[in-house]
């Protein structure tokens, strides 16, 4: 039945948006982190989405969607590090201040992250609505002849 693939695709969307939200919270939490394990201040991270055949469907479904390039789910292909320059703040008393008294703060823009978060939330909600619609249809189908 096609509906099983619809479930899988909505689930892949939920999963991808959730990962995006994780990364956004990560960025927001570290908006002031001047020290990281890899050294230097925290660098902003971002997700790259990619349309991909869902693996939860049958082999045939995956094969057909791969060949015909239709009905693809979504997945986080990779998490990229933002290479924009750090914010420089004049704070001579700060232990991480350089010789000129400037401290390098993460290249995270809280405003940008909030907007990104709202967009991710809406997308997540849209996927939940789609999933509920699929469930509704599946349940309705079971009512045939009742």
């Amino acid at each position, binding site marked *: 039945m096609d509906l099983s693939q619809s479930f899988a695709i909505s689930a892949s969307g939920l999963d991808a*948006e959730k990962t995006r939200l994780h990364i956004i919270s990560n960025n927001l939490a570290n908006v002031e982190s001047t020290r990281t394990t890899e050294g230097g201040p925290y660098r902003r991270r971002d997700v790259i989405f990619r*349309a991909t055949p869902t693996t939860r469907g049958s082999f045939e479904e995956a094969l057909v969607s791969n060949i015909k390039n239709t009905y693809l*789910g979504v997945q986080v292909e990779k998490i990229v590090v933002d290479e924009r320059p750090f914010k420089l703040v004049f704070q001579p008393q700060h232990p991480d201040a350089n010789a000129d008294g400037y401290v390098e703060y993460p290249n995270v823009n809280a405003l940008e992250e909030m907007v990104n978060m709202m967009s991710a939330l809406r997308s997540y909600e849209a996927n939940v609505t789609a999933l509920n619609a699929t469930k509704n249809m599946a349940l309705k189908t079971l009512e045939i002849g009742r």
Partner: protein
Amino acid sequence: MNELLGIQLNNATTDLLSKSLDIRSQRHLAIVTNVANQDTPEYKATDLNFKEALKGAAPNREFIPMMQTNGAHFSSLLTPPSVAKYPVEIKKDSTRLDGNSVNPEQEMAKLAENNLMYNATVQILSGRFNNLMSAIKEGR
């Protein structure tokens, strides 16, 4: 009597209704895919024209049913419909910088409409079976 029941169960209306259910669920899949990929760069929205798909899937008048040489044979109409691939429309023009052509509002509206039409079709199909059941039970 057996023949009568066969006609009731497998007539053109039931066939058309089940086909439109199939197309509705296929269109649902297309919409759900668009919703899931609304943030995927370079993804192009797809849709299914219900009318066109139904026209293509409508029972052909020149359809030749399989011969039944024995009374115990099932009618060929009882065999499940073949996996018909419905024509997919791809929306190529995008107004977004990331090349994605999904319009989330439009997709949600389509989702609701398609869902409603699916439920309506199920209800009509259900009604047909209920009529038959009522006849079997002699109206009781």
